[in-house]
């Protein structure tokens, strides 16, 4: 079942007098329960594509449909709040809050209906991701890079959204940690029926995904 669809997306950067086209009439669909990867050379526009489908930016033309509705109609803020979660390469956690509090922030912001006992849910999520209670109560700056990325994943899961987006989520992690994170993504797609879209330059990760797209010269092509 298609949950997210990019339709005729056109995007460019203005570089002085020149237009640098990043996405040229690109269309692609994503389904629930699938783990997608998007590959591409540096500067090909992978991150730009992710920013468009995460509503951090808007296309010059074309539309992004969530469950058939344009996300502009839904409202970019509401879409980010209730329908999509983003995991960044550099974790992006609030530095003066604990791991638990970082998860609770997202749970407070979303309008999605969540179990009332937010704290217990957050502890369980962190535990599922591999952060025990002791670490959950630490300020995030006291955690390792891998642990911080796990907290970011727990935060993404906590709002109970259908789509999880990740931008180079393992870029700062060692190989062992990378595999652990990939396993979590696979589990999210299979066990929790999420649509997981990961932008990466790692072919190893791509090989483990259900479907891979390659972004080249403004076109997203299916990669075998």
């Amino acid at each position: 079942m298609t949950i997210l669809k990019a339709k005729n997306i056109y995007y460019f950067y203005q570089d002085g007098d020149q237009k640098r086209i990043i996405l040229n009439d690109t269309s692609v669909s994503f389904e629930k329960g699938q783990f997608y990867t998007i590959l591409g050379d540096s500067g090909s526009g992978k991150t730009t594509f992710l920013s468009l489908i995460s509503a951090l930016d808007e296309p010059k033309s074309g539309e992004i449909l969530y469950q058939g509705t344009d996300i502009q109609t839904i409202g970019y803020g509401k879409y980010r709040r209730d329908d999509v979660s983003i995991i960044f390469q550099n974790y992006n956690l609030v530095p003066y809050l604990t791991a638990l509090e970082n998860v609770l922030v997202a749970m407070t912001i979303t309008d999605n209906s969540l179990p009332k006992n937010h704290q217990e849910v957050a502890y369980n999520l962190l535990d599922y991701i591999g952060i025990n209670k002791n670490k959950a109560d630490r300020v995030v700056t006291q955690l390792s890079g891998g642990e911080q990325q796990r907290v970011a994943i727990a935060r993404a899961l906590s709002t109970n959204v259908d789509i999880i987006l990740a931008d180079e989520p393992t870029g700062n992690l060692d190989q062992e940690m990378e595999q652990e994170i990939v396993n979590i993504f696979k589990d999210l797609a299979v066990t929790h029926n999420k649509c997981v879209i990961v932008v990466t330059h790692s072919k190893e990760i791509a090989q483990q995904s259900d479907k891979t797209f390659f972004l080249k010269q403004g076109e997203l092509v299916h990669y075998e």
Partner: protein
Amino acid sequence: MNYLKRAWYSVSRRKGKSFILFTVVFVLGNVIAGAIAIQQSTGNVEKKMKQQLGATVSAEMDIDKLMEEGDGTASFTGPAPLKEETIKQIGSSSYVKDYDYSYSGYLTVDKFKTYQMKNDNVSVNGDIASLNLKGSNRSEAADFKNKKIKLVEGRLVSKDEIKNGKAVAVISKKVADENGLGIGDQMVIDTKMVSQNADGTSESQEALKHSIEIVGLFEPITLDKKKSDEKKGGIQQQFLEMDQFNTIYMSNKLVRSINQQEIEKGKELDPDAYKDEEVQQQITPIYNLKSPDDVEAFKEEMTALLPEGYKATASTDEFDKVGGSVQKLSTISGYVVILSIIASLLIISLVVVLFMRDRKHEWGIYLSLGERRKHIMQQVVLELLFISLVAMCLSLITGNMLGKLISESLVASDALTELQQAAGNQLFISGSSSLGASLSTEDVINNYQVKFSLSYIVTFLISGISTVLLSAILPLTYVMRLNPKKIMM
């Protein structure tokens, strides 16, 4: 973990930044609080002193103006006396509670002993002794009512005696003692006519004998209060004192009758000197107003009705003469309040904007999670308020102390002494007012107190919080312009 909790955690966990902002608000808060404390205290002292002085307005000859017109010499032709119709017209003003008018007279006495000032170095009018007559239409003359003098023996002139113009009067205890007189005695005031010769010498002739029964004795109140000034040997004070002791209070009718007799006798003894002299009766009206707040408005209304050469004088004018230093302090502190609020707006805005830029990643995280911008703004304002409220509560106390210290050092400074002297000189020139109000800079300074009042707290907190909230506007526009993609990717 809503924005309220986030704001609290941000303030309590980012201690260094919170401390810097706290220090900035605390220092600026002290300046604002100090200036507000001084301004309120100056306002209070003015209000308090003016309440004490009462809401009484009189019409008097504008001596300064007349002297100016007479090339700085005292030899001027005085204006025509005020007419009773004018006095009544002014008295019909809505500001007036009640009014009285007083005929006044001046008698040069021969054997009757008057009170003389104690300063041996100063001779008053050569050997001429004189008495002032003050009439009234009321039993309780204005000087009694305004607590300039108090009755110490006997009684006041009764209503019937005023109506009939009976020869009864209230005199000062000092003058009564000088002449060995008491209540019920008939005092005989023997007047004389003094004429100046061409060679500068003077001649005097016996004129009239006015027999008046003493019904009461008075003592000054305001002069008692100024013993410290007397010790300092202030000539001005002694003149005022002499003037007061040598005043006799009686009915208007009696004053008019004595004045008339004196002029007629003058014409008889020295026809040349009195040939152009009309029987002119000087009248001084005294208006009691409903409220001291009405004084300025009434003065304006009254000035328009007064003939040339007269001015409206209020009991509260005394404060304006001697309270210049306090009023100056009030003006300066007013400027300080405005300047420090503007400086606070700029400084706090800049500090908060700098801190905001430091935290732009955090704002980006919230925006990428879908947080509403208004909640981010509320978090910024709440953080600012948490810190500012603590800083302001502390500066409320220290600022008050600062205001007290500054005021005390200013009051003790030479600058104020100079002002005090200037005010004293002015009072000396003007002489004693018919309103009887007498005030020194010392009184004003003694009444000046920097207090920790409710109005001080409310004024400071309102202006402080408003300043802090206004200074959040610039940082909030920064939040409005945040682009999560640029921050996060």
